[in-house]
């Protein structure tokens, strides 16, 4: 195992409770930040660390913090995005469930840095028991003077509130989350204005993912430069990966972004290989909305280098031959999986979760779902594949929020890399009902470099 910053103490008995967490060295960063550091110094430290948003987009967190508007007399807010609903992603759930005080600690430090006296955790409604765990943790922190009025005699007041969502994926988008937090229908807002200027109740707001805020704790404890030394290039620190699908050891792993994808899938320390001696066919490396990659492009980039588990390497080659780190939901598909069915399942999810505000996403996702259903059930036509391509092309980039892109990318990537399998579904409908296409040539080495 590499460096562990977030999950190091997660197996300690009773770490869920304040006493044990404190005994194991918790809340040191709060003491350090509130007693020794100015808010600006914390933002500077986070900038130095090179921490990137862990929610999916990978935007530098320090930059985001420095954008927050600071008008006189207007309160500012920090909102923690715990609406983790992406299929295949469950890292925040693990973190919040087993080591909730780490998040609370990160939230206090970040609230101090941003000047937020009322901080919110927006948690998805399905995580009902985790909301209770967080509320218990907040009560414990409050009882021990880490929350409430005048924390550690520093003069800084902070309260954390847990807000339960009502089960909408779209509320994980930051402006939809803000609308929902305000008690309205969770429709994404049109940007600009950005939340950093007008967020919750038109006040400056920063929305960050759970993991991002938890990562602030080791940054303050050890310093931004020490954090930046872990990992490679612009992928600094550690990343939680929730691995699932056809692997021997599904679960949440903390990696330091220097290991290769091959090692991550096959080493016994992490996923432990594919069960029943099956072969790797494809993988969705960052949660359901990122492009799917066939085995040959997953393990090696188009240039022939080994692909590493980090932001740059996973997106090497753009969308032509690469994918994205996304939120870290690592879904592995073995040779028995049908890509058409997989794409259909994902599209059904996006159709169900589209908010219905802007027309390309509202109508396009439903249309794609119907076509994919037809293809999967052997009633498709050859023209359907091109039609799907055309629909996704017209959704992508033309919508208010990234859900349209997220719905278009999996379809685009599936057609780009697995067109043979789609065509087989059209030409051999009887066969397609009986069996799967199998591994085919998707793991064969690529001799000719892929363009792009």
């Amino acid at each position, binding site marked *: 195992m590499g460096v562990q910053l977030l999950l190091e103490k997660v197996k300690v008995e009773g770490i869920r409770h304040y006493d044990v967490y404190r005994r194991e060295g918790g809340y040191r960063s709060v003491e350090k930040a509130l007693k020794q550091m100015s808010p600006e110094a914390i933002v500077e430290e986070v900038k130095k660390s090179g921490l990137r948003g862990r929610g999916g987009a990978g935007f530098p967190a320090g930059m985001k913090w420095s954008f927050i508007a600071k008008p006189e007399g207007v309160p500012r807010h920090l909102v923690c995005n715990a609406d983790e609903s992406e299929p295949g992603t469950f890292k925040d759930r693990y973190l919040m469930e087993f080591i909730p005080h780490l998040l609370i600690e990160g939230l206090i430090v970040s609230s101090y840095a941003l000047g937020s006296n009322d901080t919110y955790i927006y948690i998805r409604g399905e995580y009902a028991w985790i909301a209770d765990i967080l509320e218990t943790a907040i009560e414990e922190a409050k009882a021990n003077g880490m929350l409430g009025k005048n924390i550690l005699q520093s003069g800084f007041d902070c309260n954390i509130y847990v807000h339960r969502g009502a089960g909408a994926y*779209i509320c994980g988008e930051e402006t939809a989350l803000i609308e929902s937090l305000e008690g309205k229908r969770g429709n994404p807002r049109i940007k600009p204005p950005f939340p950093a200027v007008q967020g919750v109740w038109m006040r400056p707001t920063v929305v960050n993912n759970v993991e991002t805020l938890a990562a602030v704790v080791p940054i303050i404890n050890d310093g931004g430069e020490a954090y930046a030394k872990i990992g490679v290039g612009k992928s600094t620190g550690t990343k939680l990966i929730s691995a699932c699908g056809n692997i021997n050891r599904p679960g949440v792993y903390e990696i330091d972004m220097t290991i290769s994808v091959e090692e991550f899938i096959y080493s016994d320390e992490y996923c432990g290989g594919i069960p029943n001696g099956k072969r790797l066919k494809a993988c969705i490396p960052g949660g359901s909305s990122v492009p799917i990659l066939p085995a040959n492009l997953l393990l090696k980039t188009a240039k022939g280098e080994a692909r590493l588990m980090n932001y740059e390497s996973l997106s090497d080659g753009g969308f032509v031959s690469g994918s994205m780190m996304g939120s870290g939901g690592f879904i592995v598909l073995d040779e028995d999986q049908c890509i058409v069915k997989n794409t259909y399942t994902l599209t059904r999810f996006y159709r169900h979760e589209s908010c219905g505000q802007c*027309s*390309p996403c509202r109508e396009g996702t439903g*249309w794609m779902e119907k076509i994919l259903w037809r293809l999967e059930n052997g009633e498709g036509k050859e023209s359907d594949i091109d*039609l799907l391509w055309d629909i996704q092309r017209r959704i992508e980039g*033309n919508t208010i929020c990234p859900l349209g892109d997220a719905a278009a990318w999996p379809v685009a990537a599936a057609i780009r890399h697995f067109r043979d399998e789609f065509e087989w579904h059209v030409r051999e409908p009887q066969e397609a009902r009986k069996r799967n296409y199998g591994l085919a040539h998707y793991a064969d080495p690529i001799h000719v470099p892929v363009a792009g």
Partner: protein
Amino acid sequence: MSEQPLLTVTIDNITLQVPAGTTILQAARKIGGEVAPPAMCYYSKLKESGGKCRTCLVEVSKGSEKDPRPLPKLVASCRTTVMDGMEVKNITSPRVLDARAGVVEFLLINHPLDCPICDQAGECHLQDLSYEHGKEGTRYEFQRRTFKKHDLGPYIQLHMTRCILCYRCVYTADQLTARREHGVLDRGDHAEIATHIEKSLENNFIGNVIDVCPVGALTDKTFRFKNRVWFLKPLNAHRDCPDCCGKVTLWNRGDEVYRVTARKDEWGEVESLEDGSAAWICNTCRFDKKKTSDWVIEGPRDINRHSVISQGHYAGKIGTTTPTEIFTAVHDGRQPKLLMDIHSVSEVNRPEIELSRIAGPSHSNDFQKGNE
């Protein structure tokens, strides 16, 4: 207050100056003609409207004078404000036209296309949009989404099947009326406009949702199936109303008033009054005053020459800019390819004749005589 500096913006090679805070769409509407992007959800009189339908997408090829980088994505012109030195491409950008054709296709896949029995036909924004930007056929081969019809009170019928979820009526109900009782239920392609548990809408101004609806989803029950709009003669009229401005358009056939609507400008929006507020009308004016004697008639209303309503020869000044002027300016002096100039071969519909001044149905004789 000091005078606000004017910003320079170039839209489709036409440069103009607008005050700060103007959106690209408003700037383009100042030029008018084809350069103005179509808007299905934006309504300048309703706060927060716009940005949803994506028909007004434009390409920003130069962000501003300070930061000349082009914007990576197409932007919704109705919600993007102009920057100094911005260059925008609307009808000169193939990317925009392609995206717009896509949006039209998306809007139409679940639309019932029941124009022959729809009261909105003839004045429907979706009809105009699909005529200008749509394809002749559909690639959609599945069952279309349908809903049951609902009555929102005694005067308004909601036919959700036709709805394109522009949210205009939601904003109208929100901003004109005190209580929030009209909104959107569900999400995605099964989202529906509804009142809370099928309540009726009891508000004196709620009839305005009919006027803002770009399609035939919200219709006037006192006018349903009574007549086609192009058989009616629109007349400007007013009355002394205690609740509203009382300035309306009467839609007559002979002496009979078939329906009453607010006065709409060339963009299909309710006109502004002198003080800048919108000329919304109350339910009494709209639904109850259906006699000519209730109104003081000002005269025939100007109707866009391109509108099917003008086939009754009541066309006037609005929208009489010929398409060639703008087209030539946009395309570096290139003339549009016209199959023929109708005025050179036809004796009727000559542009110099003020059509609304002709009493009754017009004949070729009227054109030969001229306007005397």
